[in-house]
Structures are given as C-alpha cells and as structure tokens.
C-alpha cells in the first residue's frame, strides 16, 4: 500500500515535469508557427530539402523504442531486455541523426557562412534551418539524457515507470517535430 502510494507520487511528479517540458518545446514550436505564418514558401522550401528517408527511419526507430519501453513496464520479468532494446533503438536514432547531420553539412544546409539558399527568400530559408538544427539538437540532448536514465534504471536505481514516461515523451516530441521538418512542403500545392 505504501509502495503503491510512493510509486504513484513518482508518476505524478514525472507527469508534472513533462507538463513543463511541453511548455519548453512549445516555445520552439511557437517560433516555427510564427515563421510558417510569415514565410510559408520559405518554410516549405526548407522542408523539401531535409532527408525524408533519414527522418522516417528515425521516427520508426523511436516508435518501436517506445513500444519496447512500455512492454518492459508491463512485464517486469523482461524489463531488462526491454529497456536494453529501447536504449539500443535510441542509440541507433542518434547514429542515424549523426549521419544525417553530416549529409546536411555537406549540402550546405547549416545556416552559417556557407549556407546554400535555393529560393529568393534566402533569409527565411535560414530561419527554417536554424529551427531545424536547434530543434533536432535539443531533442538529441533529451535522447542522451534518456539513455543515461535507462542506464540508471538498468542498475536497479530509480523508478522504471518514470524513465519510460520520459522516454515516450521525447518520442512524442519527435512525432510533432517530424511533419514540420520533413513533410510540410512536399505537396504539389
């Protein structure tokens, strides 16, 4: 009874923290929404230049890792394997992301000195890629923290449920970022 109460308190505490994380990423989403409103063509042009294959692979990896996490929570005997699987998929995500960044840099997408604009709205294209790199970097930082939490949980410390909640939340952030970074702009119209 006391353990259930304490476990509940941990879960409540993590959801409260996640609410604050919604505001954290929400501020960045607001930036995107503003510039999408002001420069729709440039935002669309930017989204056409990101690598859809890399982005979709990453989305799939994360969705599967979320599955693994929740399997581990519901099935304590297999917790270790499940968390290792989730962590492995998360590490794979980061590896793919690194490859993608390399390709992005080579194509001149980084909004530094050698930025290669395609449309006359070069400034707003830069804005898109500032958003792209900032959002994916902050997301990747959250993934790294998540890997650390998984390692912590595998050592038997802390609450696995709390780690799983955090991990799935980071997955949700990617799910919401993905269309903005890879999809809006691919349409013919």
């Amino acid at each position, binding site marked *: 009874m006391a353990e259930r*109460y304490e476990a509940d*308190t941990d879960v*409540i*505490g993590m959801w*409260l*923290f996640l*609410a*604050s*994380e919604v*505001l*954290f*990423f*929400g*501020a*960045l989403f*607001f*930036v995107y929404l*503003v*510039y999408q409103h*002001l*420069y729709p063509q*440039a935002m669309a042009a930017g989204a056409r230049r990101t690598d859809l294959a890399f982005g979709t692979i990453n989305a799939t990896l994360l969705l599967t890792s979320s599955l693994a996490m929740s399997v581990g929570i519901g099935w304590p005997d297999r917790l270790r394997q499940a968390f290792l699987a989730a962590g492995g998929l998360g590490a794979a995500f980061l590896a793919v992301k690194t490859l993608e960044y390399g390709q992005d840099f080579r194509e001149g997408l980084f*909004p*530094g000195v050698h930025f290669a604009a395609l449309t006359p*709205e*070069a*400034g*707003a294209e*830069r*804005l898109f890629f*500032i*958003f792209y*790199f*900032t959002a994916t970097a*902050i997301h990747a930082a959250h993934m790294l923290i998540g890997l650390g939490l998984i390692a912590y949980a595998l050592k038997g410390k802390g609450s696995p449920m709390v780690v799983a909640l955090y991990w799935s939340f980071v997955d949700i952030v990617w799910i919401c970022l993905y269309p903005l970074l890879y999809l809006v702009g691919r349409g013919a119209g």
Partner: protein
Amino acid sequence: MNYLTDGWTIRSWLLTTDHKRIALLYLASITAFFFLGGTAAALIRLNLLSPAGTLLSAEAYNRMMTLHGVIMVWFFLVPAIPVTMGNFIVPLMIGARDLAFPRLNLVSWYLFVIAGLFAVYGMFMGGVDTGWTFYAPLSTAFSHGHLVAVAAGIFIAGFSSVATGLNFVVTIHRLRAPGLTWYRLPLFLWSLYATSVILLLATPVLTMTLILLVLEFSFGIGVFDPAIGGDPLLFQHLFWFYSHPAVYVMILPGLGVTSELVSVYARKPVFGYKFVAWSSIAIAVIGFFVWGHHMFVAGQSLYASLLFSFLSFLVAVPSAIKVFNWLGTLHKGRIRFDAPMLYAFGFIGLFTMGGLTGLFLAALAADVHLTQTYFVVAHFHYIMVGGMVSAYFGGLHYWWPKITGRMYPEMWARAAAILIFFGFNLTFFPQFILGYLGMPRRYHAYPPEFQILNVLSSAGASILALAYVLPFGYLAWSLLFGARAPANPWGAPGLEWKTQSPPISGNFERTPMVTEGPYVYPPEALPHG
C-alpha cells in the same frame, strides 16, 4: 534537541536533506544577493543625484541597472519567500516530516548557488548593458557584454525554480496530514501552490528563449535577427510569456504571508477564506494571459493589444478581492501592532498603490505616454519592494521564533518597519511624478528640471538602505542574545505552531491530526506580551 543541534559538521549542512536546513542555506544566499542588488541600486540613485549623471558613465550606468534588475529579479524576488519560508514552513504547516522530494530540494539549492556564481561572474567581468529584459537585436547584435555567463546563470536558476515548484505541488497534493482537506489549508499554502504552478509552466519558456538568445549572440544564427526576416517582437513574446507570470511568482507568496499575518494579528479568521484561496489560483491563471501589455508600443497588433489590455484589467480583480477581504478580516478584530503586522499594513497600502497604478498602464492610451518612463519604474517597485519586500520581512519576523528559537527585539523591529515605510515612499513616490512629467527610465542623465524629484528619491533611498540594514543587524543579534521563544509566541493557529521552537529534525513527535479549519482562535488562549 532540535534540527539546528542535530549535527555540527559542515557536511551535515552541505549534504543535508532536511528542508529546514536547506531553507537556511537559501536564506544566506538570498540575503547575499539582496545586498548585492541593493548596492547596485545605491549606485544608481547616487548617480541620479545630478542631472548630468557624473558618477557613472552611460555605459557603466546601463551595466549597473542591468545588474540590479537581473540580481533582484532572478536571485532575490523570484526565490525569496518560496525557498526560505516556503521550504521551512510548508512541511510543518502540512503536518509532514519533509517535502515530497528532499534530495531534489538540496539539488535545487546547489543549482541556485551555481547559477548565482555564473551571473555574478558575468557581472563582475563587466556585465551586460541591455537591461534585465535583454531585448533582441540589441542584446544579440549590438551589445557586446558578457551575455553568455549571465544568461547561463539565469538558465540554471530556472531549473532550480522548476525543482522547487515541482516539490511544493506534489507535497501539497500528497503529504497533507490526516484531516487536512484543501479548505482547511492555510492561505499561505494556496498561494505557494499557485506560485509553483506558474514556476512549472512559465520557466521552461524562458529556458528556451535564453537558448535561442545565446545561439544568436554567440554564433550569429538566431531566430530574432531582422536581417534574415526574424521578428524582434517574437523575442518579446517569448520573454514576457515567462516574465509576466514571473511577477506573480514574486508577489503571490507575499499575498499569502499577508493573509496569515492579518489573521493572526487581528486574531480573527480570514474573511471570505474561499474567495481568498481561489483568488490566488485566479491570479496565476489569468496572469498567464496578459503578457502583451509589455508590448503595446513595440509593434504588436492593435487588436491583440486590446485583448491583452482587457485581460490585464481582469487580473486586477482577484488581487482586489484579497485586499477587501483583508480589510474585512481587520474589521472588529483584536489588532496588535507587532512588527509583522506593521509590515502587513505596509504591504496592503503599498501593494494597493502599486496595483492601481498598474491599471493606468494597462489602459492603451495612457500607456502610450507612460510606458518606458519612471511611472512604470515606480509602479513595479511599489509592488515588488513596497509590497513583496515588506511581506518578506513580515513573514521573516513572524516565523523567526519558529525558525531560530529566538525572539527578535520588538521595538527595533517596529522602528525598522516604520522607517522602511517612510523611506520607501520618499524613494518611489517622486518617481510616479517624474514618469508623469516624462522622464524616461534607464537613462543615466536627465534634463535639469527633474533634479529636485530625483534628489528626493535618492534621499529616500538612503533612508531605505539604512532601514534594510537594521533588521540584518538586530536579527543577527537575536541569534545569540534574543529571548528564547516558546512553541507558540503569537497564540497563532496552524500546525507549525504545535511543535517546539526550533522544531526537531522530524518536525513532529507524532503526525498531527487536523479536525478544524485553519483560523480558529480559542477565546481563552491569549498570547504573551
């Protein structure tokens, strides 16, 4: 045997998870920052004695006023009551042994100290000259100060705030003593709950804004850069989405303390308890929707400004409800003029003035003339200093016997409270007039016709400075020489007074059971003195 004598080593203090010891660690840090920010204020007022502003150069003045704002906002006002009195009193008031996450509490103090070191380092290396609001593109492209260190300090302090807020919310939900229902909670806890909600939801937006700011400043890649189509007003939207609720973070705990003081020293239950309780929640909620009133003349859409103006008028209502209910509490009460009550009176008067002048600023047409003048400066100092700092001192004196086990010297305390009230008004009332007459804020020099009012203001500041040093002196004195305090020197209700002064480490010998409302005063039990 109490929490102070339970371990004498430095380790037992620096690695404590006892909320009471952590509160004292915070108290020391907050006090240091208060004096740092106050020193900056003294230099500002000294400079403004002469119209040519000869004490500081324009650049130095800008850095000084930025230091004053940054330190006072993030390292004094935002944490002040929650991390000192909140940390100490919340578990006691709730009948718990500690907060929900004691180790997180200790981490939050370390984060706060590290944050402070970053900010102070940045300031002493030369600081920033943009004002505490860091507007882009001034801060990112045209100003060349130590933005990264200062921003890092504020960034880390944000994590400390969120940790504190999370701890309080979960504690108030989960650790209440048996019988302590929501409507039996002291109003201090309602206001701290509201404060914590704001901390949790507003701070993350500032965190993101600081990241974006530093990216633009350090690497030239930023989303606020007009040269690539960025909108500077976007920075202001994000900044004020946090910073307006932040001012409610600063004042709500003071409102809560005042509710306690008014009840105890009038020896009457708070009039309209439920209204006062829910008004804290209303302030927190509505306070999130008014931030655009900082941007009326910055290029914001007129229609959005209309909406924000209306909502800003609305947010004054719950504050007014509190003031009227305090008056209702005082009516036919058995009022004692102990120092905490004098601070509470000061709070009510000065907060009301500050709040009413906010309505002038919320009116679009009036704001066109008053914005960025000393009228605004006076408005927020009436609330922050006249209100909040008075409530801080009031609460500190009220709970001093519980925290330290000593009584402070009453006559010195009353003298300080009265001196603060007069010094404060002399400092800041002339500033309303200066603003009305058109003197801009953040200027190191001014037209000669404004000198008399500025001299009056600086004279007031010198009195205020002395008045703030007084409590520091006699409270420190009381630690060694003050009379020993009984468990309940004020005859006050509340669970914190049902344990010894200072409390034992575990707070209560046995978990208390609550059977009645928060402000019950038995007629026979008269307090001492």
